[in-house]
């Protein structure tokens, strides 16, 4: 059978990184293709190439759709041909109605005057097709996530969709809504509409997918036909994580002492949706000199956990206890958390970590200005000495500490963020994705810094999406999924398969 879509030899590079190398995928008519892979395997990049977010010419390889080679320059080029992508973060305008959202940019209009009767009538039809019983005038903000997802699909149907792409469609849906959505996909298949479904939930994939393509490190590893044989989850997991441990880690000899940091029964809710529990009764402890890893997929709640602990900088209705050296401490504001000895280095250093328009010296002392000041007057020379000390100790490569941080490479920016927190003199450091987006050499240096911190008797928590990294750097690993800790294992006994299996087994159980 002639495939409706073929992507051949797609290669896409970002400065210094090969996001996709020579990826092939194809989708047959009336088929559901599942695309699976770890965080950073290249799934989203591939879909952006397909939909025209990255225009023709910025990648190499060919896209053949309905038998013709296509060169999409913008999203509307692919949409006009019936390729519709629904993103993980829904792209609906919350304060407009269902009908207004469905027809946004495609309003049925004559001379710019919108024919709302027609829009309403067609919206009703579309809503019926996706099984959503709501009035077209209802505002999006009054709908739950599951229903919003259905509105997105109705919007896609309105554009005469032939190939529907769903990026993690059920990640924020409950069991009932997820099942309804999957049923809808199967119904579309009956009508001849193909779908590409990107998902981490292997149980759902085995329910609906006809074939499964596995991506790893920007390459197609395997395509499995679900009708030819019974595909076990283990088989998929192996294909997803079966990477050689090529990352190198500096040697470390841990001298682990008594617990110095404990989190008890920690819970927190979404900052905007008071009924959505993001962190569910988490218990955690870190010992002196220990590096503890928190593993999990994107959206598992790891950053939310860390930020809610660090001065309640995330969420609402936070409950639970924090103990440092066995004594309860108050971490209700960021200054209090810092006084208690906590430090949190963010995963998003450009948005939350650095003042990009300012230079290295000012960034390093920002969290501890009083440490370089007397009577609130900054001593320039003391500050300079501090900045130069960290520049030397952490090997920040720059022309001088007066260089603006926006011009630094990712690795050096991360070192500035680490310097800032080291200078604040914490006992417990939470490092969120400390090596995201930085090259291998700088990664090795960061691991070395983490080791030194542990050897100096600090407690270090490393949050990372790279399982290999956690296995190499941590002494003990917590596995997190859907806001809960679902497994805990010493790093010596852990493996990527074991972590992935713990995540896969836990889907849906957290809601019980």
């Amino acid at each position: 059978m002639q495939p409706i879509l073929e992507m051949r030899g797609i290669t896409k590079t970002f400065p210094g990184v090969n996001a996709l190398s020579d990826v092939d995928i194809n989708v047959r008519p009336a088929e559901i293709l599942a695309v699976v892979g770890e965080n950073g395997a290249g799934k989203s990049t591939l879909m952006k190439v397909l939909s025209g977010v990255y225009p023709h010419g910025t990648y190499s390889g060919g896209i053949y759709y309905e038998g013709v080679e296509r060169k999409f320059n913008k999203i509307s080029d692919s949409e006009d041909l019936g390729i519709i992508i629904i993103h993980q973060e829904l792209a609906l305008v919350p304060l407009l109605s269902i009908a207004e959202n469905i027809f946004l940019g495609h309003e049925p209009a004559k001379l710019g005057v919108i024919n709302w009767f027609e829009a309403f009538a067609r919206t009703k039809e579309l809503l019926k097709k996706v099984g959503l019983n709501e009035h077209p005038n209802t505002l999006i903000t009054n709908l739950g996530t599951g229903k919003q997802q259905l509105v997105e699909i109705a919007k896609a149907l309105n554009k005469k969709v032939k190939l529907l792409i769903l990026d993690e469609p059920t990640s924020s849906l409950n069991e009932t809504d997820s099942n309804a959505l999957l049923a809808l996909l199967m119904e579309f298949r009956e009508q001849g509409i193909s779908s590409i479904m990107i998902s981490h939930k292997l149980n759902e994939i085995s329910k609906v997918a006809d074939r499964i393509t596995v991506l790893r490190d920007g390459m197609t590893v395997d395509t499995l036909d679900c009708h030819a044989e019974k595909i076990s989850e283990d088989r998929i997991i192996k294909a997803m994580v079966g990477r050689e441990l090529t990352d190198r880690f500096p040697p470390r000899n841990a001298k682990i002492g008594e617990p110095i940091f404990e989190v008890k029964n920690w819970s927190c809710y979404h900052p905007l949706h008071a009924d959505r529990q993001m962190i569910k009764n988490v218990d955690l402890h870190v010992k002196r000199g220990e590096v503890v890893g928190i593993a999990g997929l994107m959206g598992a709640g790891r950053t939310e956990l860390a930020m809610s602990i660090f001065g309640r900088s995330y969420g609402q209705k936070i409950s639970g206890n924090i103990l440092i050296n066995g004594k309860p401490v108050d971490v209700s504001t960021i200054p209090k958390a810092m006084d208690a000895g906590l430090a949190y280095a963010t995963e998003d250093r450009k948005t939350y970590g650095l003042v990009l328009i300012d230079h290295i010296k000012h960034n390093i002392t920002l969290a501890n200005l009083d440490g370089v000041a007397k009577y609130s007057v900054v001593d320039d020379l003391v500050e300079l000495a501090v900045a130069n000390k960290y520049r030397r100790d952490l090997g920040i490569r720059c022309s001088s500490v007066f260089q603006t941080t926006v011009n630094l490479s990712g690795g050096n920016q991360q070192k500035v963020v680490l310097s800032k927190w080291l200078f604040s003199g914490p006992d417990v450091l939470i490092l969120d994705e400390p090596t995201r987006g930085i090259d291998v050499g700088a990664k090795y240096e960061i691991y070395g810094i983490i080791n030194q911190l542990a050897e100096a008797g600090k407690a270090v928590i490393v949050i990372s999406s790279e399982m290999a990294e956690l296995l190499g750097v941590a002494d003990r690993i917590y596995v997190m999924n859907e806001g809960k800790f679902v497994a805990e294992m010493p790093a010596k006994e852990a493996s990527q398969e074991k972590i992935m299996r713990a995540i896969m087994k836990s889907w849906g159980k957290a809601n019980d």
Partner: protein
Amino acid sequence: MTDISTPQVKPDFMRFVRSNIRDYALLLSLLAIMVFFQFNTHGTLFRPVNMTNILLQNSYIVVMALGMLLVIVAGHIDLSVGSVSGFIGALAAVLMTGTSPNPDLFTIPKFDFVTASIICLGVGAAIGAIQGYFIAYYKIPAFIVTLAGMLIFKGLALSVLGGASVGPLPATFQLLSTGFLTDVFDVQLLGAPFNLLALLIGTLITAALIYFNFKERRSQLQHGLAEEPEAIFYGRNLLIAVALIGFSFIMGQYKGLPNVLIVMFALIALFVFITTRTTFGRRIYAMGGNEKAAKLSGVNTERLTFWIFTIMGALAALGGLIFAARLNVATPKAGAGFELEVIAACFIGGAAVTGGVGKIVGAVIGAFIIGVMNNGMSIMGIGIDWQFVIKGAVLLFAVFLDVKFKNRG
């Protein structure tokens, strides 16, 4: 992504000029504008009486621009300063003269000017604090809060004055704006009395400034930090000396140094110190540069914002007092449009709309650029209509250059 390490920077003349071109361009623009008007007003601009006038006319703008710079660097705006200064001027007049807006209902006791001034500064700070409270703790955009404040205090100024002008004010209070430092010498220069004290103070301040500059330069050299090429350093100090001593010489030919100039200089020095040397100032720049990062680094951004607006309120009050003392009467229209000149001064002076960037000295120079233009255009007989058009064009052009420089990277 590999780490690119650039070699250690050596003091390099052109490189330094390029990276500091904004500061030089600003100063040179002020000089160019002054020379332009000196020429086009047939030498009136630099006359001692006119120079004194320019200072007195712009003192309250400069005072308010100091606070506005903090506000803008923090990433906010304050539209209410004109109305607040007008309201405080009205309040001062009412308190000092004991005029009740509605004598049938209540009377107002007459306060001496010191007590009245202190009350007024306190009320100004309280107004700023209230606005700051809504902005900092309820996250209502400063634009909205201060727009509301602009309307409220415009109305209150009218109400306090009962719709009429109140004056005259006590003679001792007027000295704030119209008084000069009394000369202790009795010197004649070319047959006219010359205020030697002005020249002496000017020379002393110049000597002190240059002493500190050299001290800092020495310490920079010791630590290998001197980025500024030697020629520029000496040239800059020479220019400062010529400008300051020349300026005090000109002032000496009229009545000497105005009291308000001393107040202004003291405040400028204080705010330069606050913004460049204190943790408070440092935190303002960090917050304006990236509020989220500053907050996550333990900066209490709410409290900081609150204090910035409180300071702004107090300075707006001081501006109102200076203006009332200058006019010797409080009118319902006082303060109208001040906010525009104050905000324009900051942006012409190089502050960034996005926050995190801006210098006190820049804002002061910006204020004087506007002041000299106002003065020069008036002497040239350009109508108020075209004055607005030209000032608007200058503001747009200055910010346009900023954006263009930035985009070129």
